[in-house]
């Protein structure tokens, strides 16, 4: 064991939870557009988010065994399981973001820690600190062009890529899990700003928010 304190921050009792966008839905609304919408936004709230830090080789072994996924070794890449529910994204040379269905993160952390034993690594649960927002629709890329300075052209941002970059005046992770879908990982405290930005920039595409 790595002699770190693990802590399951979730409770199974029926306690109300609020996603980082709860405030935004109440205050900015969630526009519903009919068939005319060229842009869909959907929050995938309450997922489990873990930051893995350590050497690629030992972490790769561990996530293969525990999660059945390879650790993406190439910079700026993303791997996901067949269902798309579980993913690992390269963040920096010794840092990865794991996203799993909500509630899986603590058992996963525990198993990884067991597997990794005395290796030097760190696992930090950040599930309460960020949320996943999906963008789809024909205008999604154009919306991103309004927002991020990073080149999101398909030739430069193929499926399976993920980067951390400037989003308007905040920072987000942007990833492209499939041909027609983009994902943003947004810090909780910046979520309302990002959401209002997306609604404003998406208005001309008749943005549709699915809750």
């Amino acid at each position, binding site marked *: 064991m790595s002699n770190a304190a693990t802590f399951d921050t979730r409770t199974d009792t029926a306690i109300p939870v609020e996603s980082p966008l709860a405030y935004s839905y109440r205050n900015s609304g969630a526009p519903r557009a009919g068939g005319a919408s060229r842009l869909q936004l959907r929050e995938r709230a309450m997922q489990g988010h873990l930051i893995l830090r350590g050497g690629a080789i030992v972490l790769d072994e561990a996530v293969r065994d525990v999660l059945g996924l390879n650790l993406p070794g190439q910079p700026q890449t993303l791997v996901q399981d067949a269902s798309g529910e579980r993913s690992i994204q390269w963040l920096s040379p010794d840092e990865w973001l794991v996203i799993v269905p909500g509630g899986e993160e603590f058992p996963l952390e525990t198993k990884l820690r067991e597997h990794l034993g005395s290796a030097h690594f760190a696992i930090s649960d950040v599930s*309460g600190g960020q949320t996943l927002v999906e963008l789809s629709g024909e205008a999604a890329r154009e919306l991103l062009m309004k927002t991020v300075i990073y080149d999101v052209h398909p030739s430069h941002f193929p499926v399976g890529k993920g980067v951390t970059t400037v989003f308007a005046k905040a920072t987000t992770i942007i990833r492209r899990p499939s041909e027609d879908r983009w994902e943003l990982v947004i810090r909780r405290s910046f979520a309302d700003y990002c959401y209002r930005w997306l609604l404003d920039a998406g208005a001309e595409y008749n943005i549709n928010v699915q809750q």
Partner: protein
Amino acid sequence: MSQSKQQVYRLNTGGRIDRSRTLSFTFNGERYQGHPGDTLASALLANGVDIVNRSFKYSRPRGIVAAGAEEPNAIVQLGSSEAGQVPNVRATQQALYDGLTASSTNGWPNVQRDLMGLVGKLGGQFMPPGFYYKTFMAPASMWLTYEKYIRKAAGLGRSPMETDPDSYDHFNQHCDVLVVGAGAAGLAAALAAARSGARVMVADEQEEMGGSLLASRETLEGKPADQWVARVLDELAGYDNVTLLPRTTANGYHDHNFVTLHERRTEHLGDTAPVENGHRQVRARLHRVRAGQVILSTGAHERPLVYAGNDVPGNLLAGAVSTYIRRYGVAPGRKLVLSTSNDYGYRAALDWKEAGCEVVAIVDAREAPTGDWVDAARAQGIKIIAGSAVIEAKGSNRVTGARVAKIDIDAFNVSGPVQELACDTIASSGGYSPVIHLASHTGARPTWRDDILGFVPGLVKGVQACGGANGCYALADVLAEGVEAGIKAAAAMGHAAQTVSLPSAEHLQQGPAVALFQVPHEKPTLRGPKQFVDLQNDVTAAGIELATREGFESIEHIKRYTAMGFGTDQGKLGNINGMAIAARCLNRSIPEVGTTVFRPNYTPVTFGAIVGRHCRDLFDPERYTALHQWHVERGAEFEDVGQWKRPWYYPQKVSGKTETMHEAVARECLAVREKVGILDASTLGKIDIQGPDAREFLARVYTNKWEKLAVGRCRYGLMCKDDGMVTDDGVTGCLADNHFLMTTTTGGAAAILEWLELWHQTEWPELDVYFSSVTDHWATMTVTGPDARKLLGEITDIDLDRDSFKFMDWRSGKVAGVPARVFRISFTGELTFEINVQANYAMHVWQTLFKHGEKYDLTPYGTETMHVLRAEKGFIIVGQETDGSVTPEDLGMHWCVGYDKPYSWIGKRALTRSDTKRENRKQLVGLKPKDPKVVLEEGAQIVFDPKHAIPMPMVGHVTSSYYSPVLESGFALAVVKGGHQKLGETVYLPMADGQTFEAEIVSTIFYDPKGERQNV
């Protein structure tokens, strides 16, 4: 309003306008008509509007001179509503739309009868160059008074006084090849690059792409050139890898091939953007382009000749005359005299004649003009007066005649008798100046070429110029240069060349041009009638000559002294002529006088496009905690802490009146001291630190010791930069042997994480430790006050007994059914529990605390109360008590410095310098005002002797100051030179209003000095 005027100068045929539809518009209150395809300028000319403005300084009547971006006079204010006002629009670039409303930017009460004109006429002599500097700069204090009147009299329009209803965007673009300008060269380049598969962007500032080919008398493949344009545009539009941006001006060329494009998306449709599907369209867009390669195919501006009276309405550029006839179906007059130094100018006369109007004469400065166009003019029977020039235009509100004479260019004099030709229009051509503005934004100096009598762009890496921008004017050569540039640029980005067959162009014989800039007059320049160089800034040839006589020799100085090329004009028409005049006066060559540099922006960019969406409530990110909604609903006033919105205080309604901040803070303070209060502390930075060397790392970045901190315990840490100055502080808890949770100041969170990574990655990579930010993951609620234990005890399974959960311990358990880590630390001096839960549960826990807190009178408090309470205890706030020049010892925190730690730590060495050991450093002390009602001003300067002559030696300042409800007195923290040795002494604080406060230096701990209240 009067009846709409007739379009008396509209031709019956020709041009790219749609005569089947009529648009009405208003200019200076008069109604006129035009057609789709018109610009405001072409429509005004069609209606015979001669005067479009008054000049900036002399208030002379001015008419339209050019047909594009270089127009200096026809600058209008646009907008039929207050919110839709747009200043500084060139009528030559504004597409006509139905209902367009425009007015002149200068002229009061109007352009036709201008009162300022009198001032100009009378005052003209008294307003030489440098007038403003000479007259208004002294006394300096009066400038603000003068400025109001000068600005009222001058200016290029006004901004709207109502909120802009439109929205604007930024677009971040990336491409292999950016082509600026879609004329012959640009289209050829774009075609070559696009066929190779490169990502190509083409930006063109006009309503239609095609540049001069849209109005050319030349043919391509034997057909009108615009047919080739249409074919190329069709092909380009079919490529996925090509983005075509019409109505888009490349305004700034910044470092590393970063180019800003201003796209006007709806300005050809109306004052404000039309609404589509219930959403107002985006009016303008700023494209921020990162280009691999840039091709500048920006063309050339025709240079006017500088002769007397050349600003009277009816004086136009020769090329503009052709453009108005061929593209807009307008002949801007009846009787033309053309004054030229080259063959190109002849096209204006040929077009004029073909339009059925009278060409009085072509006046050619060359002794023996030859060339195909010269021959064509002769064949048409047009009179050519060789070796001569128009030396003066006659007329005041419109040209009535041209005074023509033989001139000797080298001797700079009139060498023959003067004849006056009756005419209403004078066209002039002095050759072309390549449009090198963008290239000079990069800082590359342009190069003078004698063979083309112009500057060509200096080029930096990754940029090419072609066509007119490169001083290449013959159509066949322009196309070839374009293709070559396109192939080269695509190849540089790894895209193989594809063949592009060039359309066949006519090969025309041309005679050599002569270098003529300022035309001599019978009278010397300084005595003769005004010869304008820069029409927009009212700079004359005499002004430049005077500047050289006054000792200004560099063109940069001459420009500043005369205002030539200033402002939004950026010297498009005037700069080269001005340099030539300066060169003549100084008896030097043009390049010897200097090169001219143009600045961004090429043409004005609306603020909306610059701002994009970064305005109103999206101006800057607002960071919210998970409890923000509660604070809003509770009516909190918010304070900005970094980008966070933190509750500042919670004003309550007391018998119908809302509390003042002072009242609210006093109530909140007493609630914490007497009962229990709660603070949302979620904004504190939180860094998860894991690894076997975590403890060692902490010992190296903090000044104090971490060796013995046990699991379950917390410790306050003080962090210095390597200069020994305090940069951050906070409590770190030991979660496990290899696992710590560090808290940082709210504002410092991101910077401290970077600081830790920096030291780990660059100095101590051998330490096995990792850092991750968990700031947003945890919500933190501080429950503090004598009743804190009772309240928390109701909803937690954690044993809160004073002996098992001691001060500076942390425990985990459930609070309100939610897993929580609770830290028993205190920033108020009272019994305190900081509850940390996963942020998604925070609202539930907070509300549960309030449900149970009712009976304890649980009071939410904000940052202001937090500040008062911590200051009563002498707890510092980094950034308030410190300013980057304060050491731990200055703060009296010697107890927090471990000089004997086994390994060195950041700041240790700096803290042993003689300067940091100096005894009279400014040291943190408490100040007790002699009058308890006084609350000293934060920032107030402190002196020892208030009777000392001014300037008094200032020995420190107040860093924090509040009224303490529990002490019933004002109190302050301050830094005072040698303060630690001065307890009990009196200091003085002289204020700006003349009164002087007295205060006693006391301990920084004002309340509960033994710390008994937090240890209960």
